[in-house]
């Protein structure tokens, strides 16, 4: 059996089943094929940890991590950390997990204690933990995972317990805050948020005193799988086992209805209906994933045109630009998914497939190693995806926030599509080198071809034969420039051409074209810089640009305006004339292309 195929261990899971059949599950997991990484995990407990380790092991194995455990003697977490411990030293842990709970908080204010006493107790209790973390960091140099505290299961001060300075609930909340502050200044320190998980599970059930007094478990038996799953998410994230991208269906996943049948106008999305609101919230949730570095993609059985119409719905938060790869076709979804992985240059197992249709999920599970969670009903989508922890955050970097944009730009670069995201960092990363010179014999054919092919980035749509090009190049009354652009992905060849003729101190631009595949790479500015430079050499003081609208060149309607020209004439057909006075001090517009001007 393939590794990771045990559905019983995928969220949402049946905790009772896992607890009862843990032995069998372990046997099956260990028999699975595939490569696992081995990690040594030290569990330092403030209460019983036996079943926590037993269940954690299952989830780790399922994630491709084969753990070896060190388990402290009952309740000996502090002693194990603070005092010389040969056994733990020899074990040499890859990660240390400290399993403490509200049951381990010994210093706690009494009703009526004031701010000063409470503060002292807080320092004492925090110091107990921070001294231990510091020691562990010094001795073991490995990640430390620390539980925060769940809320107490009773409130001596009732509603004031969380508000009054001497309330236990307030005290634990403040202690948790101190833990978080420690984490902010210590790398490799991670909080296992049992405060949240216990609340989500139900605090009364979680803290059932039966399990404490019978077996010294700080949580009930039935909650252990959810607890262990949450902990496993941190460990697998630390060891690089997070997923990287979402692959989303459209119809009845990102909106209610079928766009091909119902039409984009009739989809359920937005604030008008309850279901519309559910899908709108889900779209917002998905969009926010980009901020933690998750790449979004579409895999939908649809005509592309319809898919786009749906994504352009004004009430939808997600827009086509939010996605890196959009597959809207009639191919099997498993094939699309493999293609998406290949295009993103990541492994299919790093993908999470989200689809309302159980049959599609099944096909993807059977044919690919991607995750395909049982997402339930639309109102459950967010919880299931969120709690699954596919993209568990350990630290947030600038790269995470930008990853989607970078990938998208790269992909567009590779596919030579139009509309680059204009990110300076990205442009810099391309390491672009340009060559901009007067027409040279070797490029005449290419230049002529370009004047006949370019439709969109073409100001005058004037066509030239190769003979005319050669003539212009030879004629001293013309200024001609061709531009080549290279970057780390390769040479784009000749991508831009400018031809102007001189009339005393004026240069009239007859042609300015550029290949759309280098749009927004600063190439148009590099050409402008060079044109100004050439013009000056020839004693030109003013440059006149002409724009003649066609059905296809609307994108350059305001091109001369962007270059700093002023519009001096416009006729009824929309033909415009633009004027640029060359200033005394010309500041170069191109910032990202290193331009080589003269022949070596």
């Amino acid at each position: 059996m393939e590794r990771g195929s045990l559905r019983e261990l995928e969220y949402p899971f049946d905790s009772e089943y896992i607890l009862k059949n843990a032995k069998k599950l372990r046997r099956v997991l260990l028999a699975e094929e595939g490569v696992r990484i081995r990690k040594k995990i030290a569990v330092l407990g403030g209460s019983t940890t036996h079943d926590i380790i037993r269940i954690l092991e299952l989830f780790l194995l399922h994630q491709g991590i084969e753990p070896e455990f060190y388990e402290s003697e009952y309740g000996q977490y502090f002693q194990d950390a603070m005092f010389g411990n040969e056994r733990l030293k020899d074990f040499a842990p890859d990660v240390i997990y400290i399993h403490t709970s509200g049951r381990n908080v010994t210093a706690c204010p009494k009703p009526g204690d004031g701010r000063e006493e409470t503060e002292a107790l807080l320092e004492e209790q925090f110091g107990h933990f921070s001294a231990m973390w510091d020691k562990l960091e010094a001795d073991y140099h490995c990640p430390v995972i620390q539980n925060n505290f769940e809320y107490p299961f009773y409130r001596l001060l009732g509603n004031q317990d969380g508000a009054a300075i001497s309330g236990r609930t307030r005290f634990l909340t403040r202690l948790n805050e101190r833990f978080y502050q420690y984490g902010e200044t210590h790398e490799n320190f991670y909080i296992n948020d049992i405060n949240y998980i216990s609340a989500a599970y139900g605090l009364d059930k979680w803290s059932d005193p039966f399990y404490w007094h019978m077996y010294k478990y700080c949580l009930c038996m039935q909650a252990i799988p959810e607890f262990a799953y949450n902990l496993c998410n941190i460990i697998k994230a630390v060891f690089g086992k997070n997923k990287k991208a979402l692959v989303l269906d459209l119809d009845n996943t990102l909106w209610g209805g079928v766009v091909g049948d119902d039409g984009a106008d009739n989809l359920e999305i937005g604030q008008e209906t309850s279901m519309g609101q559910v899908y709108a919230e889900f779209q917002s949730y998905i969009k926010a994933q980009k901020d933690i570095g998750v790449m979004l993609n579409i895999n939908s059985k649809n005509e592309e045109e319809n898919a786009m119409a749906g994504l352009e719905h004004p009430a939808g938060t997600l827009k086509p630009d939010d996605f890196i790869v959009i597959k809207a076709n009639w191919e099997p979804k498993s094939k699309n998914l493999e293609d998406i992985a290949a295009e993103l240059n990541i492994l299919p197992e790093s993908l999470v497939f989200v689809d309302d249709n159980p049959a599609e999920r099944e096909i993807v599970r059977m044919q690919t190693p991607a995750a395909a969670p049982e997402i339930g009903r639309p109102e459950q989508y967010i919880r299931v995806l969120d709690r699954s922890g596919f993209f568990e955050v350990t630290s947030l970097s600038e790269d995470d926030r930008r990853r989607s944009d970078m990938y998208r730009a790269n992909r567009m670069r590779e596919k030579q599509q139009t509309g680059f995201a204009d990110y300076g960092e990205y442009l810099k990363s391309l390491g672009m080198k340009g060559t901009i010179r007067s027409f040279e014999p070797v490029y005449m054919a290419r230049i002529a071809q370009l004047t006949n092919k370019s439709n969109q980035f073409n100001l005058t749509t004037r066509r030239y034969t190769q003979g005319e090009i050669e003539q212009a190049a030879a004629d001293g009354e013309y200024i001609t420039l061709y531009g080549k652009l290279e970057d780390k992905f390769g040479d784009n060849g000749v991508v831009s051409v400018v031809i102007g003729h001189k009339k005393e101190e004026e240069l009239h631009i007859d042609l300015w074209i550029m290949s759309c595949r280098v749009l927004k790479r600063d190439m148009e500015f590099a050409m402008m810089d060079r044109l100004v430079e050439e013009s000056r050499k020839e004693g030109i003081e003013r440059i006149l640009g002409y724009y003649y609208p066609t059905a296809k060149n609307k994108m350059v309607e305001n091109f001369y305006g962007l270059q700093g020209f002023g519009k001096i004439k416009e006729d009824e057909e929309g033909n415009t004339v633009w004027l640029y006075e060359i200033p005394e001090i010309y500041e170069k517009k191109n910032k990202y292309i290193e331009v080589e001007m003269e022949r070596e």
Partner: protein
Amino acid sequence: MTREEVFETLNGVFQDVFDDESIVVKEETTADDIEDWDSLEHINLIAAVEQEFGIKFSMGQVVAMKNVGEMADIIMGQIKD
């Protein structure tokens, strides 16, 4: 549910928990008779039995239980209610 049926169901739970299909529990079976049945596995066993029968043992009952027969007594008492 008859006593035989309770035992049949219990037998299934024991087999699952200890991952051993050869287990056959009787009235007088105790932890000494099943190799893996230690105090830690006992916790898991109790939880699995509770879930299977949809019942909840009190602390007093868990502490006092001497063998599988007594467990069956408590179960029959609870499902009759």
